[in-house]
């Protein structure tokens, strides 16, 4: 399982990196942590002619927390998120979700940008980005653009990134301290890709009813999805047993999950409902 041959460059600026990608004519790929790309190279599922390493490009590994929310540089690693204790308050949903990612050695190399660009339908980071209305900051040959997460993920392992574009940062909007949230996933073993996962949050109005509910699901479609009907069922309701059951039922009926060797569709469908119900129960503090 040796990769096919490729050229390798490690430029020192983003502009140079973009230029190199352009020169690849669609046969160049970005590498940073390599935790998703290297296995694909090993299996020859990816056969690029050029790898452009972000290793020497400065400032992409910063976690910036401000009034406008959390900014994660593309090279921020999972271990960086876990060791930055500010995030437990600044974005508890992110902090919790990331504890489920992979294993120790992978967490020392795997990056936020890599996970988002790779867009595995079962990965936590794309799910969080989507659920939280994140914005992706992307640099390419035509300049910098900002894309909403809801438009960014287009299919299994597919995003709107052009061959000459690099995701440089993801911006998660500010997180109110009183927000209610939960993250629930179920995998065969700890650290495995989730068979299904739910990332949810909502705020409470003065009557204690949910508003602005966001429910993202991973592992149940080609890419992470928002459960719009379930959100609608949650909004305006108190978080009681009746609501939880109704929201879970709605979620189950609005999805069309795939079947694979680990989980048939019917099981995944039920699992989403179960995880959502448990998450909602947990969110009530």
């Amino acid at each position, binding site marked *: *399982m*040796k*990769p*096919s*041959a490729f050229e390798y460059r490690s430029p020192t600026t983003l502009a140079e990196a973009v230029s190199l990608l352009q020169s690849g004519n669609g046969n160049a790929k970005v590498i940073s942590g390599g935790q998703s790309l290297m*296995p694909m190279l090993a*299996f020859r599922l990816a056969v690029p002619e050029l790898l452009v390493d972000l290793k020497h490009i400065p400032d992409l590994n910063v976690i910036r927390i401000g009034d406008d929310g959390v900014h994660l540089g593309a090279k921020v690693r999972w271990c960086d998120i876990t060791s930055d204790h500010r995030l437990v308050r600044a974005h508890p949903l992110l902090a919790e979700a990331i504890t489920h990612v992979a294993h120790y050695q992978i967490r020392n190399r795997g990056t936020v940008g890599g996970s988002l660009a790779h867009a595995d339908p079962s990965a936590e980071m794309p799910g969080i980005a989507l659920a939280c209305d994140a914005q992706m900051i992307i640099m390419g040959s035509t300049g910098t653009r900002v894309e909403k997460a809801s438009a960014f993920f287009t299919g299994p392992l597919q995003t709107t990134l052009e061959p000459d574009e690099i995701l440089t940062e993801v911006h998660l909007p500010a997180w109110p301290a009183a927000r209610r949230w939960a993250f629930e996933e*179920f995998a*065969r*073993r*700890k*650290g*495995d*890709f989730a*068979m299904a996962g739910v990332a949810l949050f909502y705020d409470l109005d003065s009557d204690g009813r949910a508003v602005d509910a966001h429910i993202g699901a991973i592992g149940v479609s080609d890419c992470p999805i928002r459960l719009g009907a379930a959100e609608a069922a949650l909004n305006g309701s108190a978080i009681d047993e009746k609501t939880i059951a109704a929201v879970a039922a709605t979620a189950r009926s609005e999805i069309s999950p795939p079947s694979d*060797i*680990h*989980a*048939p569709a*019917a*099981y995944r469908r*039920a*699992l989403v409902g*179960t995880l959502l119900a*448990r998450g909602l129960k947990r969110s009530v503090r």
Partner: protein
Amino acid sequence: MRVRNSYIGQPMERTEDMRLLRGRGTYVADVNRPDQLYAVILRSSVAHGKINTIDTSRATQLPGVRHILISADLGVVVPKIPLRLQPLPQLEPFHQPMLADGKVRYVGEPIAVVLADTPSIAEDALDHIDLDIETLPAITSREQAEAMPAVLFEDHGSNAAITWKAFKGDADAAFASADYTRRETFKVQRHAAMFMEPRGFVAEWNSDAGKLTVWGAAKTAWYNRRVLAAALDLEVNAIELIEVDVGGGFGSRGEFYPEDYLIPAAAKLVGRPVKWTEDRREHMMTANHARDIECDVEIAVSRDGRFLGLRGLAWADIGAYIRTNGSVGPRNVAQYMSGPYTFENIDLKTTMLTTNKTPSGTYRGPGRFETDFIRERLIDLVAKDLKIDRVELRRRNLVADSQMPYPLASITPYDSSTELDSGDYHAVFDLCMKEFGWAEKSKLSGKLIDGYYHGLAVGSFIEGGAAGPSEDARLVLETDGSLSVYLGSSSVGQGLETIMAQIAADATELPYEKITVNHGSTSHVKNGHGAYHSRSTVMGGSAILLAAEKLKDSIREAAAARFGCAAGDVTIDGEQVACAGKTLALAGLSDVPLEVEASFFNKKYTWAYGTQAAHIAVDPGTGHVKVIDYLSVEDVGRIINPLTLHGQAIGSIVQGLGGAFLEHLVYDENGQLLTGSFADYLMPTASDFPNIRSITLELKPCPNNPLGTKGAGEGGLIPVGGIMANAIADALSHLNVQPMELPLSPARIWQLVEDAEAIRAVA
């Protein structure tokens, strides 16, 4: 006479650890020979097809590609892999050719061997080989094998290779008159040994000396050497197979595979050393698969809970060819279903079906994991029907010590019979119940606590070991007084160097530190057999005992020559010899090393046995199962090293849990292997099963070998599937959930709960 040494029974720390812990082991991938080429194998990506053409011309033009071997290079007739075990003539049509010969029958079947300057270049070359394969319908299930839209072996005319029959007493009569019978269908999934070190070989042909050297031997080097010699038309003595450090075998590594021939053949053909290591994806489609069976079986029981008989049919999906020991698992399913319980009437047949999947072979406790799942499930079902406590039902039917030797079912063809040798099955059963705390824990059966339903189960098992026919040991007393031990036994990580040194130290009364154990390579002894069927301690150890006696005779004779007295008057006391008041040290006693060789012959299996109990909890919403406590108690007759034995017991249990819950080799309807990496073939990890306990006992020594020990190390996993399924049934008894199929994946458990709730809703 004063006993000088008693290393047997001591938890000696292992000598092998000194190098293995520091990364100084030598595994075959660490072996390099000057001027070597690297081999990569072109394998079929089609499950069933006729090879029309192979065109390697584009590939040979790649810089760095030196040669591409195809079947035409192997001679007029492509050699085939013979059967090492149960080599019946009627199985010859199913032998695998070393390279696909006109037809491919499974994804992964070798078609060509590329030799290049680097492994990367060799792998690059694969894409440049043009293959024209006309696909045929793929047989991927029992239904298809029987319906026969295609036949793997046209001359044979069907996809059923052979049917093994286990028989005892008169099953039909027993069933006709039984108070109660129950019939069920069970399935166990295809999974595999999956050792951590991928296979590999380094082969070197010295044309001047006419000698072939191959590194990477394991398990059965002497047999493999004979096969290789015949296939290459060389004298046996022209070949040396060298065993280096081996990263696990579990019954799968070391059997003769196509690569055992292809790599040496390539080296001989091109006149340069050739190195090959498989990668994990390759391993999953080439190393023996195991355990794939379906079984339609019934049990007959008297009203008061005495087991009367077992009758039924099993179908083993054995893949595309029958390889060296492909019959063992299927036979064992039939022969050992009775386990440690008395069954006087047995009629069980296993049919081996060929399918377009990777061929099967033995994996730890072959056939036994499967058959124990079936039997222990049946016992719990019987207990429920007859309203007899399932603990009591088992006690009532365990073979008693007074009934030993107790014959098991006989098998035909390749007739064999065996009997349980010794044991107090009831004592071990009761000890397990006590240590486990069954009485207290059973109060939790079926209880819902924090969203989990709790369940318990118990099961007993037998573990066969010490397959014959013989094993060799050679002892060399070096001139410096140290002892070199050479064994036909092979190491697969079980601590052979340490255990055999313990046995040798006690037998020769020489200091443990002065003993070195060498194993597995064909130059070591004349006729080795190797490591399989948990035989090394019994067979290799007993051979050492015999050799030690011979060595003492040699020492006495050498001393007599020096002393000028009769050999019978010489006494040996540790590192000294004495006669008539004079003493000499063993070091320097003779000018040349004193060398003896001995063979231990054995026809009787040993039977270690035990009982396991488990406490689990199930989350019906997700199907997740927590193993809260798992206890195994096993009697092995005599323990040589409790540290290593305990280690093997725990390791085996965890493999069993992998088989019960996680591991599954899955094919699609086109014969494509969907689980081709560790991302999809799920193995137990450190966080999955933390609560495993094991107790090993020396209750009833084995009467059939001088050590009194029984082969052990496979046993742990044998009853695990049945116990886990029974525990889940116990936990979900309010729904009457009855698992009949492994693995017990979350999705399967969830589905069982769904189906049961649906039934309850309309009831």
